[in-house]
C-alpha cells in the first residue's frame, strides 16, 4: 500500500526538491479558485462538501487546529498509508498544499460561482 518505504524520508526528499516553495507567495487568484473547487468537490467526495467528514475525517478548523501544519501538508501531498487517503502531489505543489492547510485551519472558503 505505501508508495514510499519511509514517509519521513519521502518528506525530506520533497523538502530538498522544493526548498523555497514552503514560504512562497499565495497561489494566483485563478489557481486559488481551482484549489477551492478541488478541495470542496474532490476531497469532498470523502470528507464531505461541507468538510464535516464522511468516510474520511472532518476537515474543520476545530479538528485540525491542534495538528502541526507540517504534518497536515505531508498528509495532503503524500497521503496516509493504511488509510484511503491518497497522495495529491501530482496535482499540486508544496506551496499550494500549504495554502490549502492554512485555509482549512482558518475555515475553508466557499466556492465562488
Amino acid at each position, binding site marked *: *500500500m505505501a*508508495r514510499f518505504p519511509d514517509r519521513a524520508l519521502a518528506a525530506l526528499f520533497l523538502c530538498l526538491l522544493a526548498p523555497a516553495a514552503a514560504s512562497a507567495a499565495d497561489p494566483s487568484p485563478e489557481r486559488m479558485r481551482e484549489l477551492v473547487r478541488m478541495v470542496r*468537490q*474532490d476531497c*469532498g*467526495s*470523502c470528507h*464531505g*462538501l*461541507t468538510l*464535516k*467528514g*464522511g*468516510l474520511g475525517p472532518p476537515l474543520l478548523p476545530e479538528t485540525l487546529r491542534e495538528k502541526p501544519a507540517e504534518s497536515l501538508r505531508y498528509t495532503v501531498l503524500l*497521503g496516509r498509508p*493504511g488509510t*484511503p487517503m*491518497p*497522495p495529491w502531489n501530482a*496535482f499540486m505543489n508544496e506551496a499550494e498544499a500549504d495554502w490549502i492547510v492554512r485555509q482549512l485551519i482558518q475555515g475553508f472558503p466557499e*466556492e465562488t460561482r
Partner: protein
Amino acid sequence: MKSLLTVLAALLLSACASPVLRGTGDLGIVIERATGSVAVVDSSAKSILGRVEGLGDLSHASAVYSRDGRYAYVFGRDGGLTKVDILERRIAKRIIQAGNSIGGAVSQDGRLVAAQNYQPGGVKVFDAETLELLADIPAAFEAGNGVRQFSKVVGLADVPGNKFAYALFDAGEIWIADLSQPREPKVTKFRNIGNQPYDGLVTPNGRHYIAGLFGEDGLALVDLWKPEQGAKKILANYGKGTEKLPVFKMPHLRGWAVAGGRAYLPAIGKHEVLVVDTTTWQEVGRIPVKGQPVFVMARPDGRQVWVNFAFPDYGQVQVIDTLEQKVVQTLAPGKAVLHMEFTPRGEHVWISARDDNRVVVYDTASFARLAELPVQNPSGIFFTSRAARIGF
C-alpha cells in the same frame, strides 16, 4: 341545452381543480448537490418537470423509492432523510436522523426504509409512511485494543425476507439485519470478512451479497441462501505482483453490474474492470479501461456495461460489450462525470457532468447524444424503476 352547458362547465371546473392523472414509471430525480435541491425529470420527454428545494447538504446523496414509485427517499450527507413527493413536487416529510449519512434502502414489503450512517455509525430503520423510527442498530464492535467503537456503515442493500445486508468499514464485518419484526431486529454477523469493506451490492436475484475491500485485494461474498457457510473471499489476489495506483475516489458497487452469468467489478487502484463467473466466483477476465472505475453498471438487458472513472480521468465514460468482453465505445459527456442511470429498459442512459452543469442523455444503441438538460452541479440520477429492484 342548459343542462348540457352545466355539465360542460362542471367538467371544465373539475379539470382545472385536479391535475392531470399520470403514473411515475418514467420519472426520476437528479441530485443538485451544491444547491440542496433535486430536479424531477421525465425520461420519456427527456425534460425537467420542476425542482424541489430545501433538502440540506446533498454531497454524496442517494435516493431510493417507495414501492408505488411516488415518493423518493433522499439521504443527505447531513444526516437528513427527506421523503419527496415527485408527483406533487414537494417535500412530504423531512427528518434529521443522524450526523452523517450516505444512503439507504427500502424493505421487500415496502413498509420500511433503512438508513446507513457514518456518524453515529449504524443503521436506523423507519416507517416508510411516517418516517417514525422503529429500530436503531448501532454498528458496535470491539477494536483491537478492546475498546467498544462504532463503525461507519457502507453498502446497505435490501435483501429478500425483509432483511438488510451491509458492511462495517472500520470493523471488517458484514451484518444482515432481519426486520421481519421491525421493532425487534435480529442481526447475523459475519466477522473477519476482510480489511476495510468500502461498499456492497446484492446480485439481481437477491442471493449473493458482495462487499468490496479497500484495505486488501479481493471481495467478501455471502451466499444469502446458505448463510451458515459464512463469508468467503473472492478474487483474493487480483493485484498480485503489481503496484496499486493512488485512489482518488472510492468506487461504488451498487448498480447491478451482473450480466450474462458474469459480474463486472471495479479493480481498486487499477485501470481495469474485473470479470467474475457468478457460478464459480472465479475471475474469468480483466478488461483494461481509461481510468480507475467508479461505477460499473450493466444496461438492464446485460449486453453492455458502462463505466465511469475517478478523478482525474472523470471526463469520459466507456462502454464494454459483454459478448466481445472489450471496450467498444468511449464518450466524453462533459467535465466531472459523477453518475449514470439507465431508463427502465435501457434504450437510453442519463449521465451527469457536474462541472459542466448538465445531464446528457445518450442512445445506448447508436451512442447518439439525444438531449442535454441544464442542472446545477448534478450528481446522482435515480429513476423510479429502482422501486422494483432487489437491493435498493
